[in-house]
């Protein structure tokens, strides 16, 4: 009843089917035969798949984003990803060509790494795909020795372009003096564009508090977002976020972090003494932050840290990822249920009474086939 080799003879049909597969399956199916390998490995297919995937994800509510976590005080990374049997936890190993990499930036499934033990750790960075493990080295523009890098960030939006941008923040090296402590520092921004391969220095400088962390800026809505400020890549200007309305009492202990999920930018505030978590969402016109969730964690003893906020297509699937001693858990907002995702009490690295994972070292991303 069926023609022989229906699939082989119908390359167009085969491509249409392959375009719907998640990256992990595609990596595996490279081995089916040479025809499948040539399709999957082609740059054209990867770009098409990457572009279409964002659309496809909204059709499949079973796909959860993956989480990459760095263990505190180490360069070891762990992975929580979706597998056929549920969530899977494992050590994450970067490509062996990269020595002791640390993730500096991330955007739509691509990472920006700096290799701590590499040949030229301060002179280059690597754009990396955690699924295909392909990487591309990018030289930093170190022509001006008086300026050092304080932040590296990645901007990648496959719906707009297969090319990405790297935003590098530099500051003038300052000789520190015992008598003068700088509360502020002046920073410069340089943008690298992968289609031209060139760095462009941005004229306007930013005056920012010295403790502003310029690595791991979140790419959202055409801008790179740091604490309270962001760099608008379209308008080429630095702008401020609207105020978040939270108690600004310096005596209240609070842990805050920005998290991007499903095209929303969130500000997650954890108040351990009040046992509550507030999740704010920034409106895309930047007019204000709206309070999306405000939850009370009375139901169980307080978590050590709030790692991430996962936003899905429908609210009933939204969840908070929490760290408790020896465990990582998912709290679903809608029904307040808690699921233990990982139990690492038996692992070698487990330390009692210690916060072992922080939100600043947790990266939420969606697997992609995008070539770096």
């Amino acid at each position, binding site marked *: 009843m069926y023609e022989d080799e229906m699939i082989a003879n119908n390359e167009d049909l085969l491509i249409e*089917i392959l375009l719907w597969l998640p990256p992990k399956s595609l990596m595996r199916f490279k081995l089916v*035969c040479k025809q499948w390998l040539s399709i999957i490995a082609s740059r054209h297919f990867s770009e098409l798949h990457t572009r279409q995937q964002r659309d496809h994800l909204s059709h499949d509510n079973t796909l959860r984003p993956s989480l990459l976590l760095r263990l505190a005080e180490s360069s070891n990374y762990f992975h929580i990803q979706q597998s056929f049997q549920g969530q899977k936890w494992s050590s994450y190993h970067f490509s062996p060509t990269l020595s002791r990499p640390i993730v500096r930036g991330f955007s739509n499934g691509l990472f920006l790494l700096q290799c701590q033990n590499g040949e030229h750790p301060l002179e280059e960075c690597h754009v990396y795909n955690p699924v295909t493990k392909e990487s591309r080295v990018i030289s930093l523009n170190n022509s001006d020795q008086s300026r050092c890098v304080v932040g590296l960030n990645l901007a990648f939006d496959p719906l707009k372009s297969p090319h990405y941008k790297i935003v590098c923040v530099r500051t003038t090296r300052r000789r520190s003096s015992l008598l003068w402590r700088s509360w502020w520092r002046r920073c410069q921004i340089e943008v690298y564009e992968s289609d031209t391969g060139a760095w462009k220095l941005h004229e306007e400088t930013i005056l920012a508090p010295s403790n502003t962390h310029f690595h791991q800026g979140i790419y959202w809505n055409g801008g790179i977002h740091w604490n309270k400020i962001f760099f608008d890549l379209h308008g080429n200007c630095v702008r401020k976020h609207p105020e978040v309305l939270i108690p600004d009492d310096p005596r209240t202990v609070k842990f805050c972090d920005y998290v991007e999920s499903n095209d929303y930018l969130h500000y997650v505030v954890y108040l351990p003494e009040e046992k509550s978590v507030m999740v704010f969402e920034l409106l895309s016109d930047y007019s204000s932050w709206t309070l999306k969730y405000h939850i009370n964690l009375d139901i169980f003893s307080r978590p050590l840290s709030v790692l991430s906020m996962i936003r899905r297509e429908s609210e009933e699937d939204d969840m908070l990822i929490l760290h408790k001693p020896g465990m990582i858990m998912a709290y679903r907002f809608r029904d307040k249920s808690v699921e233990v995702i990982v139990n690492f009490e038996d692992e070698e690295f487990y330390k009692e009474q210690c916060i072992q994972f922080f939100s600043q070292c947790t990266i939420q991303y969606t697997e992609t086939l995008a070539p770096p």
Partner: protein
Amino acid sequence: MATSSSNTNKADHSKNPPLTLRSSDGKELKIFRIVAQQSSTIMNLLDLEEESNTDVIPVSEVDGSTLEKLIELMNNHTEKSFNYLGVKERKKFYNDFFANWKILDVLNFGLVANYLGVQVIFDEACQKMADMIKSKSVEWVRKVFEIKNDFTPEEEEDLKKENKWAYERGDLDDGDDAI
């Protein structure tokens, strides 16, 4: 199915009698013009038929049973309520439609939808097939689609080394439910 909808359809019946399609195995199936418009191929065949003045359009590449199922789906698509379905409901609808189908039947169905130019149904068939194979092993895929492994053992080893983590057996489900 299509007849249970609004008044406009009733008006259509008198002005536009249903078309008759004849499958490769001689089965004759009725389809309303408004439904048939989803298929660019049927519209083209209709133009040819109008010239030769017969009532029946032969669709010689497609067997009766597949054609009947395709017409059923096309009827569903023209119902107003269908277009208001949310993403989850649409997914459920197609999951129910393709429930218990064998993968080669879905493949055949996809090829037919492609031949008849019904893009939406073709996309759904491709999605379904991707769903059915995504957690299967390489061996399973080769077996089901009768694909010959043209790699040498060395080439296979090299490829496997590059993508070590994608081959963890614990991850795969080679159940025969889809065959």
